[in-house]
């Protein structure tokens, strides 16, 4: 292994600036003469806007302008587009309502944007916002899937009868029905996948900066994918051509999917900046984040598993209702379909699967990706169901899983739900996890807990996930409205230092370190002489951003391909300098040498020759040393693994404590094990959050009741144990790095492991159903037989 190269646990380069407070986040940026925007949001879930009286606000000293939805509409501003189209069973397209950045006629959730105040200071903007008087005619609303599905329920959109956006299916229904008809036993389960709010540490922010001299716009925004925002906002909302719109997503403090979407505020500040000819800055406060950041999950499902008498899985039938909120967010429709139901095979060779998904509108914040996006919902449903099957059949949960695993010799494996898994060894990862978890001695630990009056339980889950959505043509056929490739540019500077421009975006993942490691490995350049540039459409040629654990598997491979082009060209230059044949040049550790001789030239000298081409093959080769690659993967990558959780339940209070947690993951080859461990730690913590603490609650009238840190319970450091993590590597077969992706796995594998552990702890209490989050009250009630 090269020092600082592929596979080295290099400390993160970016952390110096973060831990010394030198990061540059959007709110750290201030433009000369900027104004501050305060958004006026709907306090009701559904209502007609009768009148917006802005006179008192405009009259206030320091207020520059107040704009309403009518002003934006009068300017011809378009609606916020959805990035994914889904077709219903009956062939009809999903209902796709308009989504103006500022609502002009009707508000549809608490938090919907109605007007914006621009003022000289934030304090003035806030005071003036108090004076904007919006007269609403309140209308009846639906705040959850239950009320949205009721007969005669109020409609979020008139076009969406029964509040259904689409009614979609996947898999072979008749084959599945046949499997159930021939089954010896059937296990059923009802699952609620609780609605979550991402709560990234950095709230969203945006600065619109219009340059009247050049007629150009710059948007600084907290985004995971600045090029996508440029495309969506430029082409669909504000009609600004790409060359006149630069989008910069600088340091971003966590995204977890909630910063993928194109948000109204981005369009509002960009548009408003031109209207007043001054930069306009908006930063959400935490309260605003709760009611305006896209929420996650929110599924209600019924599932049935058909088995032979020996416990072989024969068929799986799933029916899910998914809450999309009031409007379609950028990836909203893809999450409960392409990213969820296609994963229902899990790591098992269930031969027949049929799933139906009914996506519903409600008067709530739009729902989009949240760490794992669809895959945690699939793995939670499946792994709860499999554990229930183990209990019902009396087969050991590990044995039942093992019996149904897709075996290493089965790859490539075509699932009944569209995906083709390329590689994996599910048993090997499970065995590693079992060993690391000291599973064999669990009974001893249970006795020890019992002696302290605690109920100890162990839970297991084996998950599969799909990362790096691809290839573009298949994604397009499935409804994607954009390509899903990635772009990498390698710019070797004249003195041999390297600047990498990547279309991936780091908002905590550590690209500046891992991508630099790839350059070290391929070019032998010193780690400190490499700069990774991302998040700026003015610098990076193009990109699709970071989500779905795609950075290494797609962005990293694009970078590798560009590095390969650099290596090829460098060899040609070296061949000229060394007066040898190109085929005889070996490129290793930063030296280009003629095979079998002691003649060599350093990579830095090759770079210099490329930019000062006095001795250079100008007839056959261009000067300069810069290459770009676009990489479109052949398939998804399929990380998999096994999570084992041990909990202690206090029988008097119902409090659950996670006392041990072990993750055995297969992420393919690993660029930086320290960063991978960190990703697993974070993902598992968020998964424990979903399983035990987090729950977004609306009241019947659509008011968000969990709208602050007082009421929305995030996991804290003392809620998680030290994690034991290990990996088993089966390299991805279709990318040059052999990587699969690790960003979301923690949040995918852990929730079912936690709940299975809690149920195991309660095995003497005849509890076989427990919904997330397993709060003390819920657990205690279940123990009293009130589950």
């Amino acid at each position: 292994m090269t020092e600082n190269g592929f596979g080295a646990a290099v400390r993160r380069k970016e952390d110096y600036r973060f831990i010394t407070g030198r990061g540059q986040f959007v709110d750290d940026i201030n433009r000369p003469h900027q104004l501050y925007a305060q958004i006026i949001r709907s306090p009701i879930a559904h209502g007609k806007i009768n009148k917006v009286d802005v006179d008192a606000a405009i009259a206030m000293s320091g207020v520059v302008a107040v704009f309403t939805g009518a002003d934006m509409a009068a300017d011809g501003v378009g609606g916020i587009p959805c990035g994914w189209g889904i077709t219903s069973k009956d062939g009809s397209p999903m209902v796709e309502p308009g989504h103006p950045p500022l609502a002009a006629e009707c508000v549809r959730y608490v938090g919907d944007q109605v007007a914006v105040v621009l003022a000289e200071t934030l304090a003035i903007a806030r005071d003036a916002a108090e004076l904007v008087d919006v007269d609403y005619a309140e209308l009846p609303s639906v705040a959850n899937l239950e009320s949205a599905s009721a007969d005669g329920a109020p409609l979020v959109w008139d076009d969406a009868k029964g509040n259904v956006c689409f009614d979609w299916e996947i898999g072979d229904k008749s084959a599945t029905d046949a499997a159930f008809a021939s089954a010896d036993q059937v296990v059923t389960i009802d699952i609620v996948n609780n609605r979550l709010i991402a709560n990234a540490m950095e709230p969203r922010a945006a600065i619109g900066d219009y340059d009247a001299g050049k007629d150009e716009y710059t948007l600084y925004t907290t985004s995971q994918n600045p090029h996508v925002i440029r495309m969506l906002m430029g082409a669909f909302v504000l009609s600004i051509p790409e060359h006149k719109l630069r989008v910069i997503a600088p340091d971003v403090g966590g995204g977890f999917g909630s910063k993928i979407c194109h948000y109204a505020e981005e369009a509002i500040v960009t548009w408003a900046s031109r209207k007043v000819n001054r930069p306009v800055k908006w930063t959400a406060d935490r309260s605003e984040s709760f009611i305006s950041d896209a929420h996650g999950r929110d599924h209600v499902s019924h599932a049935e598993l058909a088995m032979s008498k020996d416990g072989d899985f024969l068929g799986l039938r799933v029916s899910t209702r998914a809450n999309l909120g009031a409007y379609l967010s950028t990836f909203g429709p893809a999450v409960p379909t392409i990213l969820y139901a296609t994963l229902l095979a899990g790591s098992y060779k269930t031969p027949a699967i049929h799933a139906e998904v009914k996506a519903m509108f409600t008067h709530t914040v739009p729902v989009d990706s949240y760490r794992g996006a669809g895959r945690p919902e699939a793995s939670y449903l499946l792994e709860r169901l499999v554990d229930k099957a183990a209990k019902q059949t009396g087969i050991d949960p590990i044995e039942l899983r093992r019996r149904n695993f897709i075996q290493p010799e089965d790859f490539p494996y075509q699932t009944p739900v569209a995906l083709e898994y390329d590689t994996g060894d599910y048993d090997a990862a499970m065995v590693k996890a079992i060993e690391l978890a000291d599973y064999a001695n669990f009974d001893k630990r249970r006795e020890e807990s019992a002696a302290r009056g605690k109920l100890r339980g162990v839970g297991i889950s084996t998950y599969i996930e799909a990362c790096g959505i691809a290839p573009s043509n298949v994604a397009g056929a499935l409804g994607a409205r954009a390509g899903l490739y990635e772009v990498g540019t390698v710019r070797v500077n004249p003195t041999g230092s390297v600047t990498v421009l990547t279309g991936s975006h780091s908002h905590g993942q550590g690209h500046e370190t891992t991508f630099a490691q790839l350059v070290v490995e391929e070019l032998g350049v010193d780690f400190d002489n490499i700069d990774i540039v991302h998040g700026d459409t003015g610098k990076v040629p193009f990109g699709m951003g970071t989500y779905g654990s795609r950075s290494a598997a797609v962005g990293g491979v694009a970078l590798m391909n560009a590095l390969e082009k650099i290596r090829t060209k460098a060899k040609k230059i070296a061949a000229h300098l060394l007066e040898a044949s190109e085929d005889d040049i070996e490129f290793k550790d930063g030296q280009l040498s003629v095979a079998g001789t002691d003649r060599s030239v350093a990579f830095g000298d090759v770079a210099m020759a490329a930019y000062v081409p006095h001795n250079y093959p100008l007839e056959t080769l261009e000067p300069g040393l810069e290459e770009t690659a676009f990489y479109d993967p052949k398939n998804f990558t399929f990380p998999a693994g096994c999570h084992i959780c041990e909990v202690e339940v206090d029988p008097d209070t119902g409090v659950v404590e996670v006392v041990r947690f072990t993750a055995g993951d297969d992420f393919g080859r690993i660029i930086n094990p320290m960063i991978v461990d960190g990703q697993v730690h974070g993902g598992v913590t968020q998964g424990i959050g979903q399983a035990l603490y987090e729950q977004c609650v609306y009241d019947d009238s659509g008011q968000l009741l969990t709208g602050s840190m007082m009421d929305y319970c995030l996991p804290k450091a003392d809620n998680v144990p030290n994690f034991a993590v290990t990996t088993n590597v089966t390299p991805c077969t279709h990318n040059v790095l052999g990587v699969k992706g690790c960003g979301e796995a923690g949040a995918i594998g852990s929730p079912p492991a936690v709940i299975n552990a809690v149920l195991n702890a309660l095995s003497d209490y005849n509890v076989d159903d427990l919904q997330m989050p397993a709060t003390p009250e819920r657990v205690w009630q279940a123990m009293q037989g009130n589950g």
Partner: protein
Amino acid sequence: MEIKGEYQIRSSRETVWQALNDPEMLKKCIPGCESLEKISDTEMAATVMASIGPVRARFNTKLSLQNLKPPESYTLVGESKAGAAGFGRGSADVTLIENDDGTLLSYVADFRVGGKLAQVGSRLVLGATKKIADDFFGTLSRELDPGATRVGADDAGDGTVTPRIWLAVAGAVLVLLIWWFLLR
């Protein structure tokens, strides 16, 4: 959310009824009331400064009197807007019953809040609103009769003073006992 309460006032029903319809009296009794003006015989507009949990805001309130049955009962309907802080709306059925000790005022109020008030204050709203209602009817009762008493058991009420003292005494004894045990 529903709250209710009862007050025994040593005044005639007519006097209490007059007070309930007197803007000056209402202004005095609504906690944080900055202004209150009569728009018509049955409508009033008020500006009220109030805090609910971490949200402190100026509420522009419209009050109207409905189901008027002088001097027995009416329904007080209110809607408050507090800009970015959200809104509150509700109604209170107020009934006056003559008895040997004067008048028994009872109210049943139903209300809800929205926007930021619901978002960050929902778990505090019930307590805060009970206090506001209690302050209102309590002040009104005492304005008419300094010796007016709140009657009936209600978790929001201050009831009589005696049980609290006993509670404090019991608590102190308990603390002393635990302290003694721990030191042994």
